[in-house]
């Protein structure tokens, strides 16, 4: 197998932003603009959140082996997943990817959750938008030299079992590099963290609309 190097990058100033439209959508607004009171509150939360952010990403390139129908090895050993298998068709390698915006955001959310729930809810939504933004920025940087690559595919998508969170955590040494830990029920802390696999080359499957390509048709956030 090829050498396996886990590289680490720390976000530079301006690389992490909140995305207000996304956050507003997470808050349940569908094509409605919140009133001024709420917008002011969102503005307040944005400032507090960005002050609490400590964003990092780590990643490693590795080989891919198609071991049989719907069975693929991306450095974890056998992964049985029709969806992942399909997503990575034709790829010559993958990037294993993990990113976080840090535990400070969790503390901030926990604090307001107890004393001012409306800010807790808004910060939670803004935090989700910020980790997505940071993942996009980091992915772009990491794949800058790649000709073609697929969009991020995470454990828990389709039939790619959430159990594989343990593999990401182990292989990328994310505890040491990013401070990400896994609970018994496979939840990551810091909450605003993402692990994913990015296929290199191949069909360069990038979903035009991440939301609509998801199998969960009952999701309340579906656009």
């Amino acid at each position, binding site marked *: 197998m090829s050498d396996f190097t886990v590289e680490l990058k720390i976000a530079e100033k301006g690389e992490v932003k909140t995305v207000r439209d996304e956050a507003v959508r997470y808050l349940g607004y569908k094509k409605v603009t919140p009133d001024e*009171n709420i917008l002011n509150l969102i503005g307040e939360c944005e400032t507090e959140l960005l002050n609490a952010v400590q964003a990092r990403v780590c990643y490693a390139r590795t080989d891919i082996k198609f071991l049989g129908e719907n069975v693929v090895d991306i450095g974890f050993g056998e992964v049985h997943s029709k969806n992942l298998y399909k997503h990575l068709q034709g790829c010559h390698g993958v990037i294993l990817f993990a990113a976080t915006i840090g535990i400070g955001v969790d503390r901030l959310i926990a*604090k307001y959750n107890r004393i001012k*729930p409306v800010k807790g809810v808004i910060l939670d939504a803004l935090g989700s938008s910020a980790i997505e933004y940071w993942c996009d920025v980091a992915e772009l940087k990491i794949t800058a030299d790649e000709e073609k690559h697929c969009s991020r595919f995470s454990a828990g998508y389709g039939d790619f079992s959430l159990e594989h969170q343990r593999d990401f955590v182990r292989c990328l040494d994310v505890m040491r590099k990013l401070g990400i830990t896994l*609970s018994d029920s496979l939840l990551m802390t810091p909450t605003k963290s993402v692990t994913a696999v990015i296929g290199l080359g191949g069909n360069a499957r990038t979903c035009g609309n991440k939301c609509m390509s998801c199998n969960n048709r009952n999701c309340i956030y579906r656009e």
Partner: protein
Amino acid sequence: MNILEKIKNSITYFDGGMGTMLQERGLAPGELPELWNISHRDVIIDIHRQYYASGCNILKANTFGANRLKFPNLEEIITAAIDNAKEARSEFDGDRYIAYDIGSLGKMLKPLGDLDFEDAVSLFADGIKIAVKCGVDLILIETMNDSYETKAAVLAAKENSDLPIFVTCVYDENAKLMTGADPAAMVAMLEGLGVDAVGMNCSLGPEQMVKIVPKIVSEASIPVIVNPNAGLPKSVNGKTVYDVDAEMFSNIMVDIVNEGAAIIGGCCGTTPEFIRKTVEKTKDLPFKLPEKKNHTVVSSYTHAVKIGHVPILIGERINPTGKSKFKEALRENNLDYILNEGITQQDAGADILDVNVGLPEIDEVQMMINVVTELQAVSDLPLQLDTVDPVAMEKSMRIYNGKPLVNSVNGKPESMNAIFPLVKKYGGVVIALTIGKKGIPETAEGRYEIAKNIIEEAERYGIDRCQIVVDPLAMTISSDTTSANVTLDSIKIIEERLGVHTSLGISNISFGLPNRDFVTSTFFAIAMQNGLDCAIMNPFSFEMMKIYHCYKALKNMDENCVEYINYASDITAQSVTTNTAKTSDNSTDTADPLKHAIIKGLKEKAGAIAAQLVKEVDPLVVVNEQIIPALDTVGKGFEEKTVFLPQLLMSADAAKAAFESVKAALSNTDQPSKGTIILATVKGDIHDIGKNIVKVLLSNYGFDVIDLGKDVPPEAVRDCAVENNIKLVGLSALMTTTVPSMEETIKLLREAGLDTKVVVGGAVLTQEYADMIGADYYAKDAMETVRYAEEIFG
């Protein structure tokens, strides 16, 4: 020479990286290096040998990731690792030591994660007991990025061995741990716990670390350890390359020694070559240990607070004495109220929060644990643990994430016998009250004598006098007008003759007088002038904060008067805002101003209008004709998707403020509750935002909510339901992985034979899931839960 003598006499060398060397020998990504202790014994012994040959003194046994979570055969793994190290050592003479190496468990502790503090202690203890049996020279706790987990590991080491304890943490380029602590906070906590050497490793290369060394050396009184990486790893042509080579590394290690590091070595990416060059270049450098600092310092999980420079404000409001609302909150287990007192004091300028939750009718030990745990989730201020119950004191010192201020010890032998062993074990600065066997002496000399005795007794326990802050007791001048003078004289002579710092529970001075703040704040000013270092005080008192800011500005403790200007400008701004608010109040006058304020989510306004209304109208009429209809309007809007979640919560907040005004007027004719509901986020799930929203709304609609919190075991829900004869339980789960605990909880409730209804909700829940696990109702949002509750209790 034993290791403790060695580190005090010359530079001591750790070995370098293990994982990276194993990868070169074929360790696969994600493969556990500790397995190689058994499967590739020769490789491990060879690497150890190379390190000893390069001149290192301390080998890290290959046990970094060895814990019961990863290895069911823990004893076999650790024994093999230590045997391998011993085998390598057998060929070398001189000062060669073996460290039992402890890394993070890879789990976040509660409340942010799901690992209980005591479970963490016991996981660490398992490995330590085995290592002690095998025979090692020291315990190294390394690569820690959380102060709380570090404390758990140190306690496990102290409780299961007499071995020296070394601790190194991972700092980022801003000199912070990933969970927020700075070097001053870590040094305070770890020296308090009595570790033998402290420092940093991993994460950064030597050139970044050299800048952080002075930050540790300037705080520490014990030897400082620095074990950097070989810079950052990069993949070049498919090979892992670190960006600092042995030559560069060893050059910078010279600077690191010159900055005051006494124990050095390497971490990821370093090899025997790095250590050999480092030993060569540094072995003849002048050896220096950090000076003894005599700092009086407490810490939280982010920062340290030093006593003895500028006056320190200790917020006194988390205390039921004389506060009926606070007592009620304690009796009702209303932690939100208590937490709010903490956060608002922090916002008002407190440096430390006093925590006193003693009330005869409650379980103080459990309450102390709960409040300290929860406070640390919402505030990063150091805490002053204030209890007369030694069990509550021990439990709270143990679970405190940092080095606490301990309130208090006094000159009676039984008090010192109870408190000093705790301070010795857990670390802490202790407030010493000048109360002796015969009570409080009437003279300053008498109080000085008691302080002196306390300090001498502390020193017999091995507690340095800089860990004692003397409180010579302020007593009201309304019963004895000489009492202020005695206290002020005591401060002076105690500081001069004993060289310790002082604190006062300052508000006592004015007890029984009108406009107490006038007297208290004036006394505060004189006391500070006499040398007072800390005041336990009310940070909401305008007079006190005014005196505090003025004093600092006048005494050259506020550079360019920046703090004073900010403070004083704010005061003007506040009065201006009040005026504007009043005008806008009038401009938005409507037929139903309270209803309007609630719908708009204007909290202060809703509270104020309700307070005014209940003076003229029957409080129940205000509830039924204003508050409830307003809530209904918002609730309906939410259901019809014209009002959204943030607005719903803001209105809930405003309604709550209005209810509180009404409640104050109702005091005697208690409003009947509509019913009591249990809410819990199920076992395994640590995300409770959704559950909290439901709680806010249910309370708004007049239901009593027993909030069991998050990660709640099924048995706890059942027991609570049985005990309180509960008709409705609400359960929340975020992930598919925690739905089984939801199912288990429902099963237990059914088995208990209760006719309890169960409503479930949460991100992954659907009607199908709800049916499958036997829930009575699936609520897709908070309003649906309210509607269902109304149906059940209707």
